[in-house]
């Protein structure tokens, strides 16, 4: 068990976005977080990444409580994320976008940077090499010096995942990775995620609406509706569960 969300509740004023939700993600699992719009999925992501503090409950990552920590410190502990609407650094090249992920791993001080100290040169060389390794892995090193925003949507999504992997995470959170992609791009993405899990020793937690994608990819899903857990288990069982169906399509049972 790498991540354990224990009885988390989040209120925004009078609205309860998440109510007493618990779940656990095992190491190297691909875990899907699904549910209709407004179910609280992204809120859950923001709680895990530290952008929101839970109103009650706890988030435990590798046996340490992480809720209440600053978001950038949670990243440094090994949780990386991508965004629902791709958020690359628009003025920067693909390479620089990935290098940002190495920001806290480059070990040189401000004054070493100003004076171009040997350690600065060595460290820059090291992180550039590793950035190119990651870009190579995604087949993107040919675009390293292009502006990230000039790439196609599918390529931008790859750069965003590459950038997240640069922070050397153990847990990767993907917020609707397949949104806006055509079927072939979606399939390619699914393969990348599966392969990256093996090669980077990753655990993946993802939000997705594309049920075919979820079915193919996820080992386990959690279905949220209005902040409450209505199903937890295998994705193939989820789509047959009456409560899940009624949450998505409305309630057909009239007594």
């Amino acid at each position: 068990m790498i991540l354990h969300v224990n009885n988390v509740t989040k209120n925004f004023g009078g609205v309860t976005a998440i109510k007493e939700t618990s779940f656990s993600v095992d190491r190297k699992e691909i875990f899907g977080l699904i549910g209709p719009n407004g179910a609280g999925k992204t809120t859950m992501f923001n709680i895990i990444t530290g952008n929101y503090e839970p109103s009650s409950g706890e988030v435990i990552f590798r046996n340490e409580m992480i809720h209440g920590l600053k978001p950038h410190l949670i990243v440094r502990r090994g949780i990386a994320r991508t965004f629902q609407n791709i958020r690359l650094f628009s003025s920067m090249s693909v390479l620089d976008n990935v290098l940002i992920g190495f920001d806290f791993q480059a070990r040189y001080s401000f004054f070493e940077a100003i004076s171009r100290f040997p350690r600065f040169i060595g460290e820059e060389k090291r992180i550039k090499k590793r950035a190119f390794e990651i870009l190579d892995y995604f087949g993107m090193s040919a675009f390293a010096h292009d502006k990230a925003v000039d790439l196609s949507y599918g390529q931008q999504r790859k750069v965003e995942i590459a950038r997240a992997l640069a922070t050397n995470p153990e847990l990767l959170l993907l917020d609707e990775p397949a949104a806006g992609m055509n079927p072939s791009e979606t399939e390619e993405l699914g393969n990348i995620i599966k392969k990256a899990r093996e090669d980077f020793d990753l655990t993946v937690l993802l939000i997705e609406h594309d049920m075919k994608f979820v079915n193919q990819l996820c080992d386990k899903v959690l279905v949220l509706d209005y902040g409450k857990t209505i199903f937890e288990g295998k994705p193939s069982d989820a789509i047959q569960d009456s409560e899940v169906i009624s949450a998505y399509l409305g309630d057909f049972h009239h007594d």
Partner: protein
Amino acid sequence: MTVKKDQWINLSFVFGVIGFIGIANSFFDEYTIRILNNIAIFTILAVSYNLINGVTGQFSLEPNGFVAIGAYVTALLLVSPEAKQYQYAIVDPYPFVLSLHANFVVALVLSGFFATCLALVLSFPVFRVRGDYLAIVTLGFGFIIKIFAINYPEVTNGSLGLNDIPEFSNLYWTGGIAIIAVITVLNIVNSKFGRAMKAVRDDEDAAIAMGVNTFKAKTFAFCTSAFFEGVGGGLLAALLTSISPDLFDFFFTFQLLIIIVLGGLGSTTGAIVGTILVMGGSEWMRFLDEPMKFFGYTTPAMPGLRMVVFSLILIFIMLFAREGIMGKKELKDLFKGRKRSAK
């Protein structure tokens, strides 16, 4: 291989500038040297202001405050105790003010040091807010420094200011420190600190999601910028030989803002281009204020026409090059782009 070539180009640039300073100092007239001094000092200020405003994208309006601090620290340290004795006409200065004395280098370093310390203290309240609010908070700080200078005559001699500052600034000092400032800022921009600053500008939340300590990135930019603004203020005081609070009002910041926006927010070499155009151009256009002859017909002198034309040029540049002359590019990117398209 390419790194080496880049280094050669940079080195030849530096030597070119040093050579130009040497030639200028011995052959140019006093007026031209004066303008070149101004350009060098404003290069220091613009390049460092651009680090926080352009590279880090934190729209702040306080450089007049830091420049004032630098100028006053340098002035207090350089003016001899005898000269101070008769300058303080409003009230008697504190005894320690009279005893302050140091050489030029120490004065400049201390100017930068005090500005940096203040920036460090300021960054805690200032970077709690983003965007427009940041502009207002820093604007307020600039005003406070000026009001402090007026209302604390025991140290600053109030609105009379300080006079008889030894004229230590010359082209070697201003040009040399300008080179140091540009190299320092470029080295910061081309390091992980610079990347973090740009990431903060592009998307602060995404930067946090990459593990960047955005407060630290902003504070580094702010403090570096304050250091060179302080040093630049010191150079300015030792160039003008007399300073008063009126010199450091908002117009000073405004002028720097024009320079960096014109040159291209976020471009260090753009800030230099902007400085040369604004400082050099506004001097060059002085002929517009004087009587002019067109085809034998003489127009009367029109003081202020210079500023009208200058404003028109600014409007046109902003209309046709919205991101400034250089955009976010550096000079060397332009050469690279040409090479690539030539292939």
